[in-house]
């Protein structure tokens, strides 16, 4: 039996090592995804938010101390003022050309209306680029409202007189107020880390890449059926169970090599391109390895089930490839689940990719270790076992074209 399994495994290795497209699907594609997504989301997910820089301009038509205060208070590390725009038309032009996402139009008479009635509608006008993400627009609007509030508080304190209110008023600037809120990442002490882009991206695209084992595995299955090699092996006395086992273990090994390579991309390659490096404290290695193993079992078993059902390469592409994209979209690989509405977030729980992501996040971001990953690993193991038994059952009942 050992000799037969060794022969089957060696054959799978040789077959896959000579399938350039299969190798590209398994190794290059997820590596490129990780690199691109880590760099693309670098600033958005930087823990101190210092990297997220959105430009804006203030068109000050009022020219009063209050309007100048407003312009001064708006500038933070996240929002950078673009000087030199003096007219509304100029601001419109800059936004239309895509050079600026926002412009704050401070009309004549602003100070007078502001001091008389701070809550007056249309006190200032926020001009914005319609292509700017709703989240960024909302953030800048909240910032503007906050600055107007600060400005109102300052003017109130100043009205109390220089002896009392002046000192308090000077402490009221957005930078100081930012510092009043401390951040604490919830998770195991010492291991929980604020998520960076690479820490969000690596597990997500690693899982996606591991499930793409369905394409080369189906291709080999289809070749075996079309060439009659599957039938020949059965005629030589090999059972369906042996044949499935002959594919399960080598493809799991390939999955684990994928996992190691993708982590290496996060640790070493992404920083070479200016992204943040993936940090993996040694304490996380054993639970992560276990998580990768269980995920691999689920991914390869799923691939075996798909490969047992499909009969042509076209079907493999649709059921396997497109199916994976749907599982990925549903599982929070492509769209982070925290931006999904509540009902969609609930729906993500049906995707095994979501279980894998939750498991990796429990280990990598929350530092929860074995207890944190257990429920997700159990789900993946049950899913993998069910898929494997179904694949074996289909083969045994002759529903596959052997």
């Amino acid at each position, binding site marked *: 039996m050992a*000799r*037969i399994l*060794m*022969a*089957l495994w*060696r*054959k799978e290795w*040789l*077959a896959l090592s*000579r*399938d350039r497209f299969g190798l590209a699907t398994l190794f290059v594609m997820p590596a490129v995804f990780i690199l691109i997504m880590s760099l693309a989301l670098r600033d958005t997910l930087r823990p101190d938010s210092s990297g997220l820089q959105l430009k804006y301009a203030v068109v000050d038509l009022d020219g009063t101390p209050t309007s100048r205060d407003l312009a001064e208070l708006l500038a933070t590390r996240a929002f950078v003022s673009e000087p030199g725009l003096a007219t509304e038309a100029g601001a419109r032009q800059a936004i239309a050309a895509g050079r600026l996402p926002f412009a704050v139009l401070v009309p004549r008479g602003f100070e007078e209306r502001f001091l008389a009635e701070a809550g007056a509608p249309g006190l200032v006008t926020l001009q914005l680029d319609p292509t700017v993400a709703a989240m960024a627009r909302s953030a800048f609007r909240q910032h503007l409202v906050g600055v107007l509030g600060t400005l109102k508080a300052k003017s109130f304190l100043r009205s109390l007189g220089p002896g009392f209110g002046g000192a308090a008023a000077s402490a009221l600037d957005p930078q100081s107020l930012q510092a009043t809120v401390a951040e604490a990442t919830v998770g195991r002490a010492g291991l929980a880390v604020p998520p960076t882009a690479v820490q969000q991206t690596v597990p997500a695209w690693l899982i996606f890449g591991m499930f793409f084992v369905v394409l080369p595995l189906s291709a080999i299955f289809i*070749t075996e059926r*079309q*060439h*009659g*090699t599957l*039938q*020949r*092996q*059965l*005629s*030589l*006395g*090999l059972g369906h169970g042996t044949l499935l086992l002959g594919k399960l273990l080598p493809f799991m090994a390939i999955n684990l090599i994928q996992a190691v390579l993708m982590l290496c991309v996060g640790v070493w390659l992404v920083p070479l391109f200016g992204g943040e490096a993936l940090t993996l404290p040694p304490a996380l290695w054993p639970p992560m390895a276990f998580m990768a193993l269980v995920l691999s079992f689920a991914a390869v078993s799923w691939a075996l089930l798909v490969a047992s059902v499909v009969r042509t390469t076209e079907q493999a592409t649709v059921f396997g490839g497109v199916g994976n994209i749907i599982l990925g979209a549903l599982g929070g690989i492509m769209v982070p689940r925290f931006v999904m509405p509540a009902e969609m977030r609930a729906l993500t729980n049906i995707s095994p990719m979501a279980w894998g992501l939750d498991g990796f996040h429990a280990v990598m971001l929350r530092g929860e270790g074995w207890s944190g990953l257990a429920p997700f690993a159990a789900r993946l193991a049950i899913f993998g076992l069910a898929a494997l038994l179904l694949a074996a059952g289909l083969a045994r009942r002759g529903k596959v074209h052997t």
Partner: protein
Amino acid sequence: MSQDLLSFEDLHFRYPGAEAPALDGVSFTVPVGEALGLLGPNGAGKTTLLAIAIGLLAADRGRITCGGRPIAAVRGLAALVPQDNAFYPMLTVRENLAFFGQVQGLGGRFLREREASALASTQLGDFRNRRAGQLSGGLKRRLNLAIGLLADPPILLLDEPTVGVDPQSRHFLLETIGGLQRSGRTIIYTSHYMEEVEALCAHVAILDQGRALVSGTLGEVLASAPPVFSMRLGQELPAPLRAEWAGRCALVSLPGHRYQLSGIPMEDTGAFLAGARAAGCTVDSWSWGQQHLDDVFLQLTRHTLRDD
């Protein structure tokens, strides 16, 4: 050993959901160490029969035995060389042989010896390191056969082993298979090429619609059809005479003023020739005797097209 028989006994098999059985009581025998040509139109049940013999399918009824032992139950007793080129195109010739040897439990020096023997039998030694997918059609057929020889099986089930190859490769394959038979192997050989079967097999069975229409030695099968009286005339046979002959025997008109009359005793041939001459026809040539295998085959399977 030569008294032993490879017996196909009352085999029945129906595919799930099929209206007609694929095999409907097929029985025939072949002496061990000899070759049997298994003939039949498409869908006759030949491949199904081989699949049962090798254990890929289980017969609904009946059994296939060799010296009383069911052959599918004895590992290594029989090997199937399928119709398809059933090997891995991305592996080399040698890697394919090693793989198919190892999955049969062969290993070490014995496997290397068997690989060498299979390569020598099929003269594939010069191509051992070439990827199987890059071989020509004839070489692929030879590799397909070589894999079947790895475990040195006493019974070889060859399913159309010469399909799609050039005459030289076919000749080589037939020589090789003939050599295997002469070395004592029992061979079941399916083919649509009657001349191959006539050249290779001392025994023949003709299947159609799941039944064995005839089986026995080649001579017995050829004798199972009535002798044919063939003549080629210089002119077309006049219609009244043709009608008269058709009423007396089975008459087939062929292009070029050729006529075949079956069921005519040899002593009556002179009367037919005289009749043709009296009707103003010249007789260019004539013959009387046993039919060829393809005539017998077409006669038994009633000349109809089988599209399944």
